[in-house]
């Protein structure tokens, strides 16, 4: 494979009609001639786990905030000895990442004692710091919730005069938007306060297990560490409780109503509505996707989604099925797995080290498992709602045709648009934005539509000999194997098999259903095998229906893998080409124990 390499970001052929795509992003985000020699010298992989679709200008905010925050902790806070941050770019709307190693051995050496001191503090005080983290994140959310965006008034209120405030609504709306952005960045700072350290501790236990038991399945290690009760499963738990409540109250017929509004109308005044209102905040701040795209639907804003799931659960209860997760059994199984592997170790020293490392991994893991709900689901839902409030203001001022057009404006351009709006309001004339933005947004939509048609290469540039960067492997599931797979994909010698991570055990055969966006999950029929670019935690309720899952993207610890294991579905993740190779209705065989997907037809 010495000669084989991925296309250069500067040579790869883009989609027709995407000219000008670079202008949709912060000037530092696209690949550019200014940094060409560096950008061509490294290996880039596409992050389809978090950003499978082209980014709209505002949605790129999450991408930049997330990756910069991740990097900052590696580089500046904990001084991870061999790793600086992850560098990031956009090409035709798609996210490409490259890990930045520390290459000088002397520098790595020098970082070690500093890392031990800094990371050591966190590991020593983990539970206390984590409690504080939960409080911090809730305060942050409350701060974001307190922000409201309203159209500028015809005239300022009398109090502004009588209280001698000396400033007006135009300043406030600009301040509030800047404040929302600051809080969003702070959110991502918090997100990575623990995550990399958590993964490092997990990796350490993982490495120990692999050395003691070279053939141990990855998922056995995950099983020993994973929590039984996890906040990420809580939304689904709440659905089940609401389904039970409906049956208990005998109001299950209400769910046959044709719309969510009608269901609520029928249930108005019943205790079920109280239960719903109690559950929905925060638990239904739950995205149908990964939480990074404005177009992903959020349960609380689209109640037809959770209501549909509740209706399914009601049907199951009626059919006599037990919809509860068997917590006791899950705990007992976890204890059994731990005890058996421990007993297979051959020395007391190893058993002691095993217990210590497992103990730390379990201490850090609640963060790893739970942060996703707090950050990507709950907090992002709040920010998207606030952005839509702002979008609504722009619609009323004639800047935008529809609320969601706000996500086609870059985050810093919004300051300019607010200035334009404020300035015209202040002067008492017309803003330019009412002409400029509808035209510009139409152009941007055309560009992004063109980008959507592009099949983005999984990687760019020179492939590394061996992938050793710990976070690349852990967070993105990029390994030497997956790179070889991508390189070999064009050879056409696949023989009908796809390979990926053995993410959740078991074997299933059935017709495939290719689901390219969360909106399509309703198309799934019982017994079908879900084939998707990725799956989101909020798809959990459909897992009772399908017989297996296959994804293009994701590693062992991807959210998709965790949820599939939880629901006992055979799953193969990170196959790279499932959605492009497998067609709707094709019979496939999914072996979640070996990571193989076989096309049978």
């Amino acid at each position, binding site marked *: 494979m010495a000669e084989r390499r991925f296309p250069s970001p500067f040579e790869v052929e883009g989609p027709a009609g995407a000219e000008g795509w670079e202008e949709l992003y912060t000037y530092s985000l696209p690949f550019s001639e200014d940094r060409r020699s560096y950008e061509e010298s490294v290996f880039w992989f596409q992050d389809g786990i978090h950003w499978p679709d082209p980014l709209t200008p505002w949605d790129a905010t999450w991408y930049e905030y997330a990756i910069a925050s991740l990097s900052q902790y590696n580089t500046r806070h904990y001084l991870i000895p061999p790793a600086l941050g992850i560098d990031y770019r956009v090409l035709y709307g798609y996210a490409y990442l490259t890990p930045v190693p520390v290459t000088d051995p002397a520098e790595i050496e020098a970082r070690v004692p500093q890392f031990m001191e800094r990371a050591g503090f966190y590991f020593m005080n983990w539970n206390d710091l984590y409690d504080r983290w939960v409080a911090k994140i809730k305060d942050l959310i409350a701060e974001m919730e307190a922000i409201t965006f309203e159209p500028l008034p015809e005239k300022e209120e009398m109090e502004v005069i009588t209280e001698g405030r000396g400033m007006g609504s135009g300043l406030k709306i600009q301040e509030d938007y800047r404040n929302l952005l600051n809080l969003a960045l702070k959110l991502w700072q918090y997100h990575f306060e623990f995550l990399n350290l958590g993964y490092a501790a997990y990796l350490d236990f993982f*490495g120990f297990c692999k050395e003691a038991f070279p*053939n141990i399945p990855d998922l056995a290690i995950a099983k020993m560490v994973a929590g039984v009760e996890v906040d990420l499963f809580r939304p689904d738990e709440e659905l089940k409780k609401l389904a039970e409540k409906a049956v208990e109250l005998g109001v299950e017929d209400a769910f046959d109503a044709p719309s969510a509004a009608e269901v609520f109308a029928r249930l108005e005044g019943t205790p079920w509505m109280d239960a719903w209102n109690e559950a929905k905040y925060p638990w239904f701040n739950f995205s149908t996707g990964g939480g990074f795209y404005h177009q992903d639907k959020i349960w609380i804003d689209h109640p037809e989604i959770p209501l549909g799931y509740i209706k399914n659960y009601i049907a199951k209860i009626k059919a006599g099925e037990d919809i509860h997760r068997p917590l006791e059994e899950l705990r007992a199984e976890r204890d059994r797995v731990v005890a058996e592997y421990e007993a297979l170790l051959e020395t007391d*020293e190893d058993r002691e080290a095993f217990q210590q490392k497992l103990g730390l991994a379990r201490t850090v893991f609640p963060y790893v498992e739970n942060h996703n709900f707090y950050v990507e689901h709950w907090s992002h839902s709040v920010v998207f709602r606030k952005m839509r409030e702002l979008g609504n203001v722009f619609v009323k001022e004639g800047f935008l045709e529809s609320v969601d057009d706000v996500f086609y404006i870059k985050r810093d351009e919004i300051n300019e648009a607010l200035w334009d709006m404020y300035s015209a309001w202040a002067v008492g004339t017309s803003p330019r934005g009412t002409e400029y933005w509808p035209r510009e947004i139409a152009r941007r939509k055309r560009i992004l539509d063109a980008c959507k048609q592009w099949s983005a290469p999984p990687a760019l540039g020179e492939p590394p000999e*061996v992938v050793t960067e710990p976070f690349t492997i852990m967070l993105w599931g990029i390994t030497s194997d997956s790179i070889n797979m991508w390189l070999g994909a064009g050879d056409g010698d696949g023989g009908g098999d796809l390979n990926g991570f053995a993410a959740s055990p078991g074997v299933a055969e059935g017709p495939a259903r290719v689901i390219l966006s969360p909106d399509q999950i309703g198309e799934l029929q019982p017994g079908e095998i879900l084939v998707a670019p990725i799956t989101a935690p909020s798809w959990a309720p459909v897992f009772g229906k399908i017989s297996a899952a296959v994804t293009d993207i994701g590693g062992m610890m991807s959210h998709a893998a965790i949820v599939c294991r939880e629901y006992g579905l055979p799953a193969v993740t990170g196959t790279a080409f499932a959605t492009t190779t497998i067609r709707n209705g094709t019979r496939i065989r999914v072996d979640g124990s070996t990571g193989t997907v076989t096309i049978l037809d």
Partner: protein
Amino acid sequence: MREFILWFDEYHESDKPRVGGKCASLGELIAAELPVPPGFAVTVEAYDTLRDDGDLRFKVRRALAEIDLDDPDSLERTSRYVRKLIESVEMDHGVVAAIRESYQRLCETCGIGDVPVAVRSSATAEDLPDASFAGQQDTFLWVRGADAVVRAVQKCWSSLFTARAISYRHETGHDHEVISMAVAVQKMVHPKAAGVAFTLNPTDGDRSQIAIDSSWGFGEAVVSGEVTPDNFLVDKVLFEITKRTISPKAIEYVLNGSGIVEKAEVPADRRLAPSLDDHEIVAVAKMAKRAERHYGRPQDIEWAIDRDLPQGSDVVLLQSRPETVWSRKPPRRVARPGQGLLDGIVSTLLSPVHTRDRSATTEGSDM
């Protein structure tokens, strides 16, 4: 009423004196959920019916009294004579009926008429010089039909009077008349597939794995190395199949029409087909794990999938021996002495060698 028959799966520890060592060990394996082929013991009470025959007792006693122990020919002659006496005497009707009835039941369990069985003596303590000696002499394989089984039992009984057994009892002062023996009647395995299994990975000593070698037909093909078997690796805790290698299997040992095991070519359509399905792989692995637990150390077992037994209970254990290669090596050590948790994390970050890539594992493991 005397109980002439005890099924292996009804065995209890207190039955050992009635059924002898061989049957007791089969009963123990079944009790430990180690499925040996089904069968039953013809108990010592059945043998004891011989003593009811006064004429037989008289003739045997007289013949034994006349032996010149210093004359090997005399010993041989007497042995042949006594054995013939025992083999030609009319067996107790109750015993015959019990054997026939039990054999019939075994045929029904296996779903085939005249199921082939192995008939073996099962010595009670001290009656015979050593088990292996006894075992070699008194095993009748591929016995079919109730009459043949009854005859084989009788031949086993007579084997208490081989020349060596007689002289052994003379030397050790055992009474020829109080000795007794039980007989094991056990279904012959008719393997669809067979092979061996180790309760560790023989290539790297990984104790968390069970390695299975498997090929079509009788296990001889695998044991003798005449085929490259399919190879499966199964995780011992989760029973996940962690690796599978399917090899072309050119030959197999099968049973021909005359009940003889012979080598045959594997038809083209089965050569590359896996010789075990996933359920069978896991069933073999579970059995191997139970054998390891039963014996308290890694085991090297021989197993077969018996085509005559109902699906789900067709995996049988043929033999279990202690594993000897890795078990003799010093224990694997993973923890580095004096290394704290944080040191461990640092070295993991510096060399995350055990993440996914095996080649990196070996290259980087010295860091």
